[in-house]
């Protein structure tokens, strides 16, 4: 495990922060801690982090606003760690730009496995078989870049891998469950809204009219399909 990987934990509960920190350090990450959203924003200026874990209920600036602020300037994977039981909060967090969520109490091993999947897949360089092209969209597996009509598109790594999965199987329907397991590293069935939300974000980047998609199609009740 490369020591260069770093994770930021934004959590006001000392005990949970300690647990997360210990787990992440055991996995070999350098951990940046923040108790408040303000502190997290300051740390982000100086530190390069590869993944951010955010509690939704924070003192001062709320988790949701922090996610929006981070997303405005960065494509870093953001995972919500929440004790909120109301699924509206989770959906709001995903819409604000988070890539995944875990609810407390979580199983640390599962969370670590998911983070590992997100980050490991981001550095895959050699086993991508062919150049991935779909209409005006072109994927560069070697640099994890996405080009639209030759212009680079700012996509997160998760977005990149969802696109790679969909274009790799273009013309075929991929279920949300399949994507959650392949891209997000879920070991069990997860919440399909995580995928829905990411697809929504992707469309606003790759489609001419995100409301009437021509490349990334929804197959109602089954999943998503990339235009062949």
């Amino acid at each position: 495990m490369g020591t260069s990987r770093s994770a930021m934990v934004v959590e006001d509960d000392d005990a949970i922060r300690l647990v997360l920190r210990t787990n992440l350090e055991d996995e070999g990450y350098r951990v940046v801690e923040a108790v408040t959203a303000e502190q997290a924003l300051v740390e982000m200026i100086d530190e390069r982090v590869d993944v951010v874990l955010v509690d939704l209920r924070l003192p001062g600036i709320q988790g949701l606003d922090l996610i929006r602020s981070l997303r405005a300037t960065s494509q870093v994977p953001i995972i919500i760690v929440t004790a909120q039981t109301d699924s509206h909060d989770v959906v709001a967090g995903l819409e604000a730009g988070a890539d995944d969520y875990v609810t407390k109490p979580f199983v640390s091993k599962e969370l670590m496995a998911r983070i590992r999947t997100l980050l490991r897949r981001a550095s895959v360089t050699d086993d991508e078989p062919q150049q991935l092209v779909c209409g005006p969209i072109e994927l560069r597996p070697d640099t994890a870049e996405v080009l639209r009509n030759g212009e680079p598109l700012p996509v997160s790594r998760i977005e990149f891998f969802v696109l790679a999965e969909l274009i790799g199987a273009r013309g075929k329907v991929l279920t949300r469950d399949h994507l959650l397991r392949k891209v997000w590293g879920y070991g069990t069935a997860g919440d399909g809204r995580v995928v829905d939300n990411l697809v929504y974000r992707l469309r606003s980047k790759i489609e001419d009219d995100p409301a009437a998609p021509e490349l990334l199609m929804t197959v109602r009740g089954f999943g998503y399909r990339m235009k062949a």
Partner: protein
Amino acid sequence: MKLRLRTRVALGFAALSLLVAGTVSVATYAFASWYLVDQRETTALTRAALDSRAAGAYLEAGSTPSVALDQIPTVGTSQPMILQDGTWYTSAVTVPPDQLPPDLLEIANPDGARQRFAIAGDPFLAVAIPMTSGMYVEVFPLRDLDRTLTWGGWTLVALSAIAALLGALIGATAVGRILRPVQRLGDGARRITGGELSTRIDLTGDPDLDPIASSFNEMAGAVQTRIARERRFSANVSHELRSPLTSVLGTAELLEGGRDHLPEREAGLVTVLVEQVRRMSHMLLDLLEISRIGADDPPQFESADLATLCRDVVSSRGLDPDLVLGDRPVVRTDARRLERIVGNLVDNALHHGGGLVQVVVQRDPDLVRIFVDDAGPGIDESLRERLFEPFARGETGGHTNGAGLGLAIVREQALILGGDVTVEASPFDGARFVATLPAGQAGP
């Protein structure tokens, strides 16, 4: 059996209408028949008096009775006859003289004696007037009058029946109108029971009905507020419990990770700690899940490969995935909920049923069944339904431990997916839990 309110009121209205219409009809009939008969008798008497006078005049002038009878202008269908010296003379034979009522001649007087009688069911009126030489009798048929009265009587009966029917109709309609607001209340209550807590009844402006609707709306508002408060409370409790539990669980798991470096005594304690914290964590999550199932989390239907899902569930419990047998249907369902269902059934078999024997997936035309067979002693038939209640405790052999909320959650989740879960005896003497799901469409 108690009749419906609408039926009872309709019957009441019908009875009342019948009573009123019947009374009026009877009175009308009585009056009409008295009036018509009286009219006819007066006419007959007058006519007979005139005719007798004419006949008397002819007889006195020396005519024979037959000639005298011929001189009487026979108006209508009346039949005149004359009795002279013990012999009857008559111009027609409709009423033979021997058929006349026997006491008619005895009561005959100069003002005319009347008597009604019948021949072969046909009614007649006979008028007898003594003359200076003999007796004058004139017979008037009453058949047409009788027919008029019969017809009129039946008409009144029919009108009374129609009045009764109209009464019933008016009664039923009136009750319908009165019941409509009550039905609206009933519909509102049903919608609230069905979870639409914001349901309110529109006020109609009717001063008799609006207070009821207002009370109903106040009650609905109170229920809604209370439920919202309890939901908030449970969300807060859950939040407050989740945070410490997260750190305890996380810490326990970290300790477990380093157990190999601990002395034997501490390692044993850590094992207990981790087990119990996990149990508590599952319990809390189950509790939260069952209290909010379906609340704001609609099922997400997607095609799912049932056999693969079951194999994943079984292997994630450290068991051989080949315990999953049967068909490999692809159905439209919510994989997350289905995984909870199968997972909880497998956990139940492991913890309370003496172990998992097999999981069988069976595809039928319209539905899919998942059988989960355990190795326990089976479940007594009388306890089977109770098993799905929260915190139910089986009382037979292997099911002595509280099954907690697992099976209750299974049932709730299955219902949300449009299916159900039941338990029966397995072919291996244990219990067989059967999850039934609609097959939906397979494949995109």
